[in-house]
Structures are given as C-alpha cells and as structure tokens.
C-alpha cells in the first residue's frame, strides 16, 4: 500500500466529517421546524476496490480504504406516519363537529333565566294573566309583548342556525381550494423527489415537505398513501386517486342536486363525488347535512305546533269587542307557519282587544278560551311531550351531542399528541445529541488532519531526509 493511498483515506475522512458537521448544523438549525426529520450521515468503511471492507479484503488480511460518506438519510418511522394520519383525520373530524355544535348550543342559551325555555314559560303565564283579568287591557298588552318577544326569539334562533349552516357550507366550498393546492404541490414534489433520487441521492428535505403535506391532507380527509418504486407517492383521497406520480386530479365545487346552494366536492376528471370517512371535510359535511338540519327541523316542529295548537283554540274564541256569533271571528293568534316566520298576528298587535279570550260573544269577563290556551302548557301536544319537554329534550340531546364530540375530540387529541410524541421521539432533533455529534465530528476531523500531517512528515522523511 502506498503513501498516497493513506493521504487519500485522510482526505476522504476530512470530507466525511465535514459532511457530518454540516448535517449536525442542519439538524440544529431545523430543531423546531414542523415536519422536519433529523438526518444522519451514513459512514461506511470501504475496501480497497471500493467494495465493503469486510466482505473479501478482511479475509485477505488487507487494510481498508477509508470511509465513505456519500449518503445522508433521514430518520423516520413510516408506520408511525400511517397511524398518525389516521388519528389526525379522526381528530379534525370530531373537532370540526364539536365546534359547529358548540356554536349551535349557544343559540339556545339554556339553562338560564333568559333562554327560550324561560320565554315559553312567560308566554303561558301571560295567558293566565289574561284569564285572571280578561276585561283589562294591561294583561292583554303584556301578552302582546311576551308573544312578540317569544316569536322573535324563535325566529332569531332559526336564522342563527341557518346562518351557521351557511357558514359550514362556505367552509366546504373553501375546502376545494385547499385540497387542490396540496394535490398540486404533492405532484410537483413527486416529480422532484424522483429526479433527485434517480441520481442516487436522498431527497430528504423534499420528502419531509411531502410528508408534511400528507399530514395536512390527512386532516382534511382519510387518505391512502403508497410509495412507488420510482419514489413517488400515489395518494388516494377517500377511495379516489388524488395524486399519482407527477399528476394531480383536481376537485371542483358543485351545487347539491336537490339544494343547489349547498356545495359539494367532486373530481373534475370523472365527476365522482369526494367521499371521505374522516377529517375536517367529513366533520363539516356531517354538521352541515345532518346535525344542523335536524336541529332546525326540531325548532321548526316546535314553532309549527305552537302556531297550530294556539290558533286552533284561538279561533273558537271571541275578542272584547266581538258582538256577533256564533260563528265567531275565527281569528288566528299567530301568523306564519314555522320557526322562520312565527309572529303575533298583525291584527292583535294593533288591537289587543281582539285577543279571543272569551268563549262567547259579548262576554268581556269570560277568559275560558284563554284558560284553554294556557292549559296547552301541560298537554302532550308533541307526541308524548309537552312544548317545554320537547324543547328541553331537544336542548339536552344537543348538549349530549356536544359533550360526546367534545370528549371524542379530546381523546383523539390525546392520541395524536401521543403519536406525535412518538414520531418526534424518532425523527425529532435533540440538541444535546447534535452537539455531541458535532464534537465527535470535530475530533474526527482533527484526527484526520493529524493523519495528513503524519503522512506529510513521512513524505518529508522520504523525499528530503533520505540521502540519494
């Protein structure tokens, strides 16, 4: 073995440890970068012919040919990635749903002194006051005010819920853009990773970026990721290809068939609907298409039944100034047909004397019809439930739903936190570790430099000190 080979080994060592210093500093620089995987220099001893030192040359008793440090790998556990992406989707789904339901819950503001339940109670009480004092105007005026407050409160709850549903719809709409942006970048990264790795290098940072985007995509909907032999990933959103190699399949926003103002997502290429089983998109769709409509329908049922049953009785009654009869004036108490438009009838608003409290014409002191209406409070008008029972079970069911999805979101969060901790335990940067690596590389570098000095001295001895 010649001296020049020793020099070559030393130079390789210098380069290798220089690289190790670079990698350690890259790791330190990215200690808190999201999605970053720490990188490792793969140091490999070489045999004289460039093969692995230990296969043949060791057996021959020959010395090695130094260190090879061409590969820099990232440390990452793809199985944890897989688990985390599933967990992320479940977490965002439940969080999205929880947020939507929490907002809906605020609309009702019960149990409290000024919730809808209290308004309902005041409404019935106002009827009792009319029973007590049917000929007086004070009780009638109070009933007018109480009814107006109740009706506008129901209307407001209805419009708030509808608006919340519209907001969810906007979010679904905006989701299309996010999916497309991620899909485009993934396709681009696929192309770049493939190009870089064809030449035998590792595209570590590109891969990190790709994995980060896949995490983000998994938060939107359930995805399926397969790494192909050409180092690209094939990504399915739901069951449909979203990215394949350098090709991405865009999604578009379309109006729902039945209700065009409600937006849905579909793939542009073949018109197949985007169908996900978890993620933010699933949460949004569930809240928009299941939870909110159910709530609005319940509120509507309550209002419609209130209108119907009060009106039915009110039609049989007579106002203070109604002298003719029978048949009486057959006057409605409420106008409107549901929660969206329930209101005190305009005639009664302008003239409370028209409130039909009496059971017959010309009976100002008779509050029998008003009493029948007041008694509706305790009657099972909605199936087996009274108005208040129906309302309180509606609020309680909503509350139970909120509490359930909140619990789900919290436990999903625990799971993703745990998995993230495990991922970070593998791929995350530890400063102490990198500083130790830095020092090790520094000493190794110094040692390699020392080798060169030694060889230099040897050459000096050989060339200058040996007498010719």
């Amino acid at each position: 073995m010649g001296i020049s080979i020793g020099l070559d080994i030393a130079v390789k060592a210098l380069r290798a440890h220089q690289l190790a210093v670079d990698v350690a500093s890259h790791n330190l620089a990215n200690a808190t970068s999201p999605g970053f995987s720490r990188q490792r220099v793969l140091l490999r001893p070489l045999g004289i012919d460039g093969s692995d030192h230990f296969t043949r040359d060791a057996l021959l008793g020959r010395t090695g040919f130094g260190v090879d440090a061409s590969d820099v790998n990232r440390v990452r556990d793809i199985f944890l990635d897989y688990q985390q992406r599933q967990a992320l989707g479940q977490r965002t789904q439940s969080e999205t749903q929880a947020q939507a339901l929490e907002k809906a819950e605020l609309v009702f503001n019960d149990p409290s002194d000024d919730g809808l339940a209290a308004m309902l109670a005041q409404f019935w009480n106002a009827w009792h006051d009319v029973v007590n004092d049917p000929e007086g105007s004070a009780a009638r005026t109070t009933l007018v005010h109480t009814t107006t407050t109740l009706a506008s409160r129901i209307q407001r709850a209805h419009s708030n819920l509808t608006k919340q549903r519209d907001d969810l719809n906007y979010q679904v709409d905006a989701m299309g853009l996010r999916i497309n942006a991620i899909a485009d970048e993934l396709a681009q990264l696929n192309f770049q990773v493939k190009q870089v790795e064809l030449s035998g290098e590792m595209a570590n940072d590109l891969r990190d970026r790709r994995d980060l985007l896949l995490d983000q995509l998994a938060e939107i909907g359930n995805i399926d990721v397969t790494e192909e032999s050409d180092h690209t990933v094939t990504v399915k959103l739901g069951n449909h290809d979203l990215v394949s190699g350098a090709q991405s399949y865009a999604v578009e926003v379309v109006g729902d068939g039945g209700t065009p103002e409600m937006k849905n997502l579909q793939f542009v290429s073949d018109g197949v609907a985007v169908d996900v089983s978890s993620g933010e998109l699933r949460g949004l769709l569930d809240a928009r298409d299941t939870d909110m409509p159910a709530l609005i329908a319940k509120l509507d049922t309550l209002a419609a039944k209130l209108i119907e049953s009060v009106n039915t009785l009110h039609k049989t009654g007579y106002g203070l100034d109604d002298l003719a009869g029978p048949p009486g004036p057959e006057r409605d108490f409420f106008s409107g047909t549901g929660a969206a438009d329930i209101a005190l009838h305009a005639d009664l608003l302008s003239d409370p004397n028209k409130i039909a409290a009496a059971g017959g014409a010309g009976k100002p002191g008779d509050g029998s019809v008003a009493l029948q209406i007041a008694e509706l409070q305790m009657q099972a008008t909605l199936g087996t439930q009274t108005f208040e029972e129906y309302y309180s079970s509606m609020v309680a069911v909503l509350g139970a739903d909120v509490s359930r999805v909140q619990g789900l979101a919290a436990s999903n969060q625990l799971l993703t936190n745990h998995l993230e901790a495990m991922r970070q335990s593998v791929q995350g940067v530890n400063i102490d570790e990198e500083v130790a690596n830095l020092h090790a590389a520094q000493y190794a570098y110094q040692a390699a430099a020392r080798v060169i000095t030694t060889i230099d001295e040897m050459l000096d001895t050989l060339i200058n000190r040996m007498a010719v």
Partner: protein
Amino acid sequence: MRVSEQSRLTARLGYLQNVTERLDLLQRQLATEKKVHRASDDPAGTVLSLGHRRDIAFEEQMRRNLSSGVAFMNATEAALDGATDALQRVRELTIRAANGPLGPDNRGAIAAEVDQLIGQLAQLANTNFAGAYIFSGHQTRTPAYDVTGSPPTAITFVGDTGERIRQISKQDKVAVNVSGVAVFGNIFDELLTLRDNLNTGATGSVIAASISVLDTAIDRMIDVRAEIGARVNRFEAAQRLSEKSDTDLQMLRAEIEDADITETVLQLSAQDVAFQAALQAIGRTSNMTLLNFLR
C-alpha cells in the same frame, strides 16, 4: 424514550394548556356561581333543571292567580258584609213599622231610610273591583243591576251567571266570582214593594210579610259569604303549598346548576399551585442543554 426539542415543546405546551383550561373553568364557575352554563355541561341535569325552571315559573304564576283571586274575593266579601248589614237594618225598620203604632210621619221617615238603604244595596251590587263589576258574571264591563228612576222604581239584573274560572294549581280550576242572581235573588223587587207599602200606609200585617222574605235573603247572603270565605281559605292554603314547593324546586334547581363556592375556591387554589409548579418546572429545565457544560 428519546426526547426531541419538538416533543419537549409540545409536551410543555400541553401541560400548560391542560392546567390553564382547568383554571379557566373554575374561574368561570366562581364568577358566575354556576357549574352548568350550557346543556353540554350536564345534559341529563339540564332536562331536570329545565323541568324545575318550568315548574318554578308555573308555581309563580299560580301564586299570582291565587293572590289576585283572593283580592277579588275579598272585594266580594266586603260587598257582602255591607249588603248583609243593610238588610239587617231594613229588617229592624220593618219590624218597627209592622208592630209599633206609628203615625204617617214616622212611616214616611222609615220609608225614606229604606229608600236610602236600597240605593246603598244597589251600589254594593254594582261593586267594581279593578275594572270589573264583580257581580255581573261575564258582563264585567257593565254594572250588574240597572237602576231605573230616582228614587228607583225598578232595579233589574242585567249581568249573567258566567263563572270566572282560573287555574290555581296543576289540577285545580276554581271560579272566583258569584253572580248577582245568586247573592241578591229578587230582593230588590221585594224591597221596592216594602218601600211602596210604607209610603202608601199598608197595614201592619202586610208589612210584616216582608220580614220572612228579608230573613231568607239574609240567610242566603250569609251562605254565600261562608262559601266565599271557604274559597279564600282554600286559596290561601294553595298559596302556602305553592310557596313550599317553590323552595323545594329552587333547591333542586340549584343542586344541578349552581356551583359549590367553597369547593370551587379550594379546587381553584389547588389548580393555581399546579399551574405555578408547571411554570417553574418548565422555567428551570428549558434553558438547559449540553452547551451549558461544553467549552
């Protein structure tokens, strides 16, 4: 397990987040004195508590129905007392006129007083309480009796026998009024006849015939008075019952909705200690790396 900078950061933020969330909840409970702010805080409790709230509001209304009913019946009682007194006086005068050897002047004076008492009775029969003529049945916007002439020649009942029924408890509905017919019957006709007899110098036996009529009327009035008194008692009992159940309901509601202040304060200070401990632990370890020891 290997610890990285990222996982350390996430874990620290997680601890702090947990502790601040708990702190926040306790502070809110303390500030509002409630532990159930929304249905989701206690869904099952909410159903119960909304039920209690409804019953509290209902009982409050029942007490209002009861107390205004009692006021109405008190006015009725007062009118009945006055009417009974007036009839007693008429009876005394009638006895004097029937028995005593009286001259035309004295008879005239008695007739004048009877006339005045008739007016008084008519006024009582037309008592108006809080805008309602209480003896008119359902015709509460018009006086129960129509008085013709002055001095009156006819006093006619123009009301009806309608009952003012109100709810006084979940089960009971009760009328608070009595119709003028039930109270006064045909007494006005009888009194007008008596007055005319006095004025026209009818014999003692003719006048004495009015005494039994008056007795019947007075008896009827006392009966009605007793009936009203019984109803008032019933109302007052119902009111006490309602007040009692209000106390019970308020307690049940509070048990579900209200925060136990003492317990909350204790929990809050415990959480506060935990929070400070977490902060200190983080502060002590977070700026510690190998770099502090390597040169």
